[in-house]
């Protein structure tokens, strides 16, 4: 089936099988490998992208369902070489280690902050429950999102809370 969609601000067309998952279209055909696969069953969130501005796990959507949609992947988040504040937050607050969950986590965090510009720690934690990370224990992911939220609100981000000596 021939589908046409917008990916990272560019129009693309592709001929796909009905069973092709959106994540496979992105990764295998469009070679946008920043979107990762951790489970293929909708639980880990590594494959999260934005479809028409909403965070979607791209392993739970067929490519044909994305016909006509406007999609943003991690590769399209920075604009003109400037990192998105959430990307910056992850870098500044050590919100990633192996980086495998990171693109999906960042896409979910962007959606979270779009919906709630000043979330509490609890709201951040629960808002990211659909994205699993095995490396960071989430502490610095929360701090990264707080950093980004402050930046997006035009505020000074809270200082880092690196370990202190007793």
């Amino acid at each position: 089936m021939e589908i046409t969609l917008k990916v990272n601000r560019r129009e693309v067309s592709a001929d796909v099988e009905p069973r092709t998952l959106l994540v496979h279209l992105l990764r295998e055909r469009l070679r946008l490998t920043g979107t990762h696969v951790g489970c293929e069953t909708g639980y880990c969130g590594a494959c999260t992208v934005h479809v028409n501005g909403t965070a979607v796990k791209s392993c739970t959507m067929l490519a044909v369902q994305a016909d006509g949609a406007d999609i943003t992947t991690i590769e399209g988040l920075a604009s003109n070489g400037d990192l998105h504040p959430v990307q910056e937050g992850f870098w500044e607050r050590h919100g990633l280690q192996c980086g495998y969950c990171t693109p999906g986590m960042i896409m979910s965090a962007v959606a979270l902050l779009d919906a709630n510009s000043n979330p509490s720690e609890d709201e951040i934690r629960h808002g990211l429950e659909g994205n699993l990370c095995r490396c960071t224990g989430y502490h610095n992911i929360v701090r990264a999102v707080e950093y980004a939220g402050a930046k997006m609100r035009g505020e000074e981000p809270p200082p880092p809370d690196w370990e202190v000596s007793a």
Partner: protein
Amino acid sequence: MSTTSVLGGIVRRREDPALIQGTGAYVDDIKLPGELHAAFVRSPFARADITSVDASAALAMDGVRAVYTIDDVRDLGPLLAQVPVGALRPLLADGAVHHVGEAVAMVVADDRYVAQDAADAVVVEYEPREAVVTLKDSASDRVKVNDSLESNVLMSWAGPFGMEPDQIAEVKAGIDAGKARDDVVVVSQEMTNQRLIPVAIEPRAVLADYNAGYNSFNVWSSTQMPHALAGAVATMFGLPTTSVRVVAPEVGGGFGCKLNVYNDEILVAFASRHLGAPVRWTESRREAGNSTIQGRGWVATATLVGTRDGEIVGYELEGLADMGAYSQNFTVAIPFLGLFVGSGQYKMPTYWKIDCVATNTATTDAYRGAGRPEAIYYLERIIDMYAREIGLDPAEVRMKNFVPAAEFPAATSPLGFAMDTGDYATNLQALLDHYDYAGWRAEQEAARAEGRNVGIGLASYVEVCGFAPAGLADLGFSWSAYGLPTAFNGSGVVRVNPDGTATVVIGTGPSGQGHQTTWAQIVSDQLGIPFENIRVRHGDTAESPMGVGTFGSRSAAVDGSATYEAAARVREKAAKIAAHLLEASEEDIVFADGAAHVAGSPDSSVPWADIASVAYQPHKLPEGTEGGLETHVVYSPANATWPFGSHLAMVEVDADTGNVEILRYACMDDCGNVINPMIVDGQIHGGLAQGIGQALFEEAIYDEAGNLLSGSLVDYPIPTAGDLPAYELARTTTPTDINAMGVKGIGEAGTIGAAQTVVNAVVDALSPMGVRHIDMPLRPRKVWQAIQDARG
């Protein structure tokens, strides 16, 4: 207390810009032209004889290139294991299967979907046999796990280490005699330290490409041990190691589960050679539960003998550890790592014996902490029970029994190991003071008065990391099975390039630990070359010196030390050149800010680029100086390192639902000097999450027939952000004396410290109801049941 960080700077990670923009390449992101895809036919039975394999339907499918069975690969021999005790895994099932998910056949096809469809079309006939799944059943040898085994009990690890059996028996007899004293209590409890699935978020993946012209392989694998894999491929195919290049590109988490050579890695290499095309395989989450190693899986009884005023008279641990059906890399050696730390921070007669028992389940091996979380769990749980029994505060009991600081350095643990440095009492006191332990207790009292079930858990731990001393090679700490009979040395190459930048090449293969950043800091500190002008390369056996891999919290202490030394030697040579250029004396040369300076003469300096350019123009060098500015150091430490720490948790239990909420989690870790505090914190955070995950959520559950019931992420709930608290971290600093940087290692500390801290807290919360112990994971149902049982 002072911070004596050698470097100690917070530097944003070099790795991150690629990873946050989606341009880091993991194995599955690398594509080769003409690549084929493998899929496996896996056993639905835990134990069965195979009567036939019919691949005709699969082979008839469009796009299927080959279906392999053991007949095709038997000549390669079984999968190599570093500690080959027990049954070794045939590359594909050889007439029988011994665990659910065992690979019976491999299909190779043009694409991933076709390969999977074809695997489903392979017809295997089985004659099911009785499987043994639980430890005690298996240890009885009622039924053999595998016809080739004489006993399901493969071996035992007993201690004190280094003693003859009769001497160990004497230690045990001494503790037994103590039990008869009338001033002691004896506290004993059988506990399960459940099996866990590591769950790296990146599934394992491998891509192999055989080159017939060179008779050589290129292999990309999501592995923690690229050199060992290269050695294994070379050994199994009868090639020199120079004919195999392994690249571990970005690796999406490892935690020990990628510290193995797997049959799939060998099989895709075989298929690539056979078919003359690149072949890849990426594990699905569903099969990962059985196709990747699991960890833990102990049932043991801890017994503590102590006086009523808190002096421990003796400690025993006796039990069984689950090895699964086949031994792979370290499998039976994992409990040995537990023996190292079996007496924890305490000075007390200790007897320790763990039997390694095979079962018809997936192989177990190293999972973050590997033997050490298990050992510390039993010890710290039983000490808590003892404290409760005699009515002393758990902190006080611990304080009374620590190995005294005066015995360090090189204190010998009761189990016979020399520990580098330690100051346990200072560390615990720092924890109590820094977080106001008394205040926590007051808060608990107040909560209890309101009818809330609030508990506080305390636990102390030692870790041992950097299993690198050359002498350990004789005990199996080597990659000798993979044709690399070297000690677990550290290695590092430091090269100053002609333009004055530096390239550092290390033999380890990190999986998120930030080596590019930390190593650049080490070298920048040594040479005064700016951080951004240093590039660290790793994970490619073609360009790196022989390296052991990233595991056992070893990288900074062992490979970091090698790099530190290599940089120091490069500096020495550069100082000679600089002295020559500046007409100064070598002793007066100092390096900083990208240049060599003459101490005391601010105007006299020469930038690195000039030194380097001269280094590569031998005619301009001082007489007798060789060209180039590069050193490779192979480093062998005198001992492992022994980090330690104490943790505190406050939890609240909802008695109506059994739900546990962690209100606070506070640490006082001591990993010696710290290179990058931000990265060290991150390691602790991740470790804590895995320890808390074990305490509250995770369990690999097998049914009686040997089916893994918790293979998906739904049935195996690793913690989410909403499940975990914000962590409070602080540290004491007791540098090691066995390496120049004074660093010990931090990769596993959080995991080793956490599980018992949480369980101690939950039991503390429920002890007024009479709850004494609950086996992990403390899921709501189990906690609720324990409350019901205690209430009678």
